[in-house]
């Protein structure tokens, strides 16, 4: 009945404890970044205590005490997160269990539970990061877990050998992983509602614009999105990636106006459209940052009345979007009254100087274009400075900026410009987004960072509809043509990534980012669409999930078969002594002294002595050496003696 026999609880070998503790550390340590410090401190203490008990060979604390600790820890986690079911709270619980489990680890079964807990914890790291370093760390941790299992079930061996064996096992698992990864039918998650805290906030464009809201972002070197053009990339100066459009001003902040019943935008495309794909990092907002004016949108996206491409759901994880945009277009020629009146509205009072100035322009010029040109002329003519560190502004921020400080960043210029336009009776609004980007020469992707965040203006004229006016281009043209790094005065702080002086660093960064991008595109971004693309490339265009499952099963079976084949295939091996002897016999046979297959060494020597006495001594010596090496007591010399005795050649 041993098939169904329950194994008695096998006590844990003391020598396996360090392995298990190493597993616990390797799987919990990276959570330091995301878990409350008190929890990590408790975990550290518990693991240190267990290590101490192991070194001193002391008994483990009572279960009773441990249960108390678990309850206390769970309550504390509840106080921290106000739930124990969320994502972060769940991870916290796992960390707690992982830290306390070693304290009650007495049998091999306990050890296996700890290992499974560790595997689970490994998965939770991906909630926070799926970068290449995380992947490498996890491979190392998985190897460690595997090695620990080998140590548990294989007894004492040199650690290096165990780790090597674990590595070999994992290597053999890689083909399965590849096949499963590529062919396992992918489902677009989530399967059920995600907990509230599933997506932590990430930086990105703000949805209101105040002085300083963009310049704060500019110091952030993180990548906002990447774009790949099917053809040649557009010049930097044309890369205006449209984000939120703001048309309501309260004297200080600009924000989007909620429209009662928006109408679809009227876009009149002229000329060729360009195709490109954007890989957008998660920003928790719905806007998609297309180039003006999008003519073809990805599935699930829509175009608003303000020409913004919006996703139906906030972008909660990195995602790819394919666009087609026409750079030459007319937009909003017969804009709704509602929209136009919103684009003229100003607070009742405040910023009187600016209003007066604009009034003057309205009287002086007849066309909105002329008024806009006058405003840009103002920025160029007067001593305006483009800077990341503008002075703080008070209540009448526009007046203060225009007539006193004259130092500002793009949002100051855009804001002042739009104010002046509205005051002069020209419908105008602010557009936030990104401008420019950097082409990575390694893979050709245009990388757009948070530091490329920008704000510009749009004015409306009856002849041409909405058109872009970038006041920043007037004051610092190089910002638009070459990027932020050249436009700022020397000595201003810049994100390291945007600095131009460290060329080698830039080269290194280009490479690293290209690798990361590839990783993002093909490993992390491997979704149902990518899977379909790949299968199409393999000539399996219209395969459904059933076919995919069958293919998957067949390939996995094939790999398993290969491994089993390797396992079953055993070369008829001769040991060294046998090899020497058989070689020797072969040479004798060539010299006319064949050994019958059934003849043992002794019999053979006897027969040679009878039939070919001249070789008797040599053959006898070889036979004896062979017998000693093969059947005698272990003797390191025996093989050498045999080698010497069989060194015979036919003369």
């Amino acid at each position, binding site marked *: 009945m041993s098939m169904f026999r329950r194994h008695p609880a096998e006590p844990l070998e003391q020598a396996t404890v360090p392995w298990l503790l190493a597993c616990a550390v390797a799987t919990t340590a990276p959570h330091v970044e995301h878990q409350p410090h008190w929890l990590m401190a408790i975990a550290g203490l518990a693991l240190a205590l267990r290590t101490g008990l192991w070194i001193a060979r002391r008994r483990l604390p009572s279960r009773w005490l441990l249960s108390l600790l678990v309850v206390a820890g769970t309550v504390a986690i509840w106080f921290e997160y106000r739930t124990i079911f969320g994502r972060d709270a769940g991870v916290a619980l796992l960390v707690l269990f992982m830290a306390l489990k070693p304290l009650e680890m007495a049998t091999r079964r306990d050890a296996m539970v700890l290992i499974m807990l560790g595997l689970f914890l490994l998965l939770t790291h*991906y909630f926070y990061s799926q970068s290449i370093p995380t*992947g490498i760390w996890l491979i190392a941790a998985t190897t460690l877990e595997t090695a620990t*299992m*080998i140590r548990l*079930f*294989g007894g004492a061996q040199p650690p290096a050998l165990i780790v090597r064996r674990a590595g070999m096992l994992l290597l053999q698992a890689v083909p399965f992983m590849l096949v499963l990864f590529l062919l396992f039918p992918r489902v677009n*998650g989530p*399967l059920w509602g995600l907990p509230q805290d599933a997506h932590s906030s990430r930086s990105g464009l703000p949805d209101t614009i105040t002085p300083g809201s963009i310049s704060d972002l500019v110091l952030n070197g993180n990548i906002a999105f990447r774009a790949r053009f099917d053809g040649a990339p557009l010049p930097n100066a044309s890369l205006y990636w449209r984000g939120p459009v703001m048309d309501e001003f309260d004297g200080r902040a600009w924000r989007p106006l909620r429209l009662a019943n928006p109408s679809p935008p009227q876009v009149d495309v002229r000329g060729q459209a360009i195709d490109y794909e954007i890989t957008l990092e998660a920003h928790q907002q719905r806007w998609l940052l297309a180039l003006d004016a999008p003519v073809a949108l990805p599935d699930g996206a829509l175009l608003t009345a303000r020409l913004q491409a919006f996703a139906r759901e906030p972008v909660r994880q990195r995602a790819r979007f394919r666009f087609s945009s026409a750079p030459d277009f007319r937009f909003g020629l017969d804009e709704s009254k509602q929209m136009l009146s919103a684009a003229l509205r100003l607070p009742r009072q405040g910023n009187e100087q600016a209003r007066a100035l604009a009034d003057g322009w309205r009287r002086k010029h007849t066309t909105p274009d002329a008024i806009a040109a006058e405003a840009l002329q103002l920025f160029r003519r007067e001593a305006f400075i483009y800077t990341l560190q503008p002075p703080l502004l008070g209540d009448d921020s526009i007046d203060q900026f225009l007539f006193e400080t004259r130092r500002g960043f793009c949002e100051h210029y855009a804001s002042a410009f739009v104010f002046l336009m509205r005051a002069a009776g020209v419908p105008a609004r602010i557009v936030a987004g990104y401008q420019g980007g950097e082409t990575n020469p390694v893979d050709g992707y245009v990388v757009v960072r948070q530091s490329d965040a920008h704000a510009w203006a749009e004015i409306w004229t009856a002849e041409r509809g909405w058109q872009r006016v970038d006041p920043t281009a007037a004051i610092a043209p190089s910002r638009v043509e070459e990027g932020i790094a050249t436009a700022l005065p020397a000595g201003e702080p810049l994100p390291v990534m945007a600095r131009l002086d460290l060329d080698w660093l830039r080269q290194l960064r280009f490479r690293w980012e290209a690798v990361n991008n590839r990783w993002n595109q093909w490993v992390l971004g491997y*979704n149902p669409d990518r899977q379909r693309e790949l299968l199409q490339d393999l000539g399996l265009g219209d395969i459904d999930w059933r076919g995919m499952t069958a293919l998957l099963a067949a390939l996995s079976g094939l790999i398993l078969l290969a491994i089993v084949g390797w396992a079953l295939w*055993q070369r008829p091996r001769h040991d060294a002594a046998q090899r020497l002897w058989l070689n020797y016999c072969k040479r004798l046979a060539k010299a006319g002294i064949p050994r019958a297959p059934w003849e043992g060494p002794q019999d053979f020597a006897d027969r040679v002595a009878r039939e070919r006495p001249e070789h008797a001594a040599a053959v006898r010596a070889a036979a004896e050496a062979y017998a000693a090496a093969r059947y005698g007591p272990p003797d390191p010399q025996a093989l050498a003696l045999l080698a010497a005795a069989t060194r015979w050649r036919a003369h």
Partner: protein
Amino acid sequence: MQASRLTLRLQQWIFRLSRDDTLPIVLGQRRIFILPTGAGYLFAVVLAVMLLGAINYTLSLGHALVFLLAGLGLAAMVHTFRNLLGIAITPGRAVPVHAGDVARFPMHLRNAREEARRALGFSFAGGEECFVDLPANGNARIDVPCPAPRRGRLDPGRLTLATRYPLGLFRAWSYPYPPLTCLVYPAPIRRPLPPPVAVDDPGLARGDAGHEDFAGLRPHTPSDPPRHVAWKAVARNPAAWPLLVKHFAGGAGEELWLAWDLLADAPDDETRLSVLTGWVLAAEQAGIAYGLALPGVAFPPANGPAHQERCLEALALHDSGSLHEHVPQAPR
């Protein structure tokens, strides 16, 4: 007991249990079986939950991790199986034991592969499992224990060779069934030796010892005068039991006969055999020549390991029909 017989027949059919008559027994793939262990099932459940998590949170690397671990499980399965495959087992001769002791059956293992095999567990049904590692291209020997509760010939039944190496997720096992037997002597009961009997003079049926000629040493009996105790011999081996006395032959020849008939008062035959066994051991230890007389068989007085073995074997196999087998749960 109908059910258990059915189980036995089922096992016999599934596992193709039959005696292995050709030695060495080489484990081929058809006689190695493999199933997941509890840990293996736990592993599968953990992977399933992890996969759900990875899908729900759209963790591409989570998918990769789960798939890597699944592949690891499959690879481990093959390796567990392979850990047994091709082992050559040659049983050795088991040293006889006394009833109530644990018999140990030596197994000589040969590994022709250039790779060590680890954590091979050997056990008999009802016996303890013991483990051995088999070096690359080398040999090993393991003594597999099997309790021997009764005298006679012990047949431990089929051997179970199992392994969970490398990861403990699977257990592969095989049932080598080599012809094994171990002689089990009766459990000894220590009683004072009976007095020797004179053989030449029928008048001295329970003849006294003489006083003239030193004839050797024999175990002490309560009637021995203290001056006859061989103190020198005792001093050489203080643990000796019982005390030895110098035995003097006085004219008449005397022989120590350990006879079945001396124990007519014993409650049953097994006790008789046990007492006789105790006597044989004591006499052999004391170096006295002794004869053994059982119904239907008698060994004339002699001494030495060969004689002792003969006597003990006779005691072990006495009136047991042919073989007294201890075959716990082994199928016929």
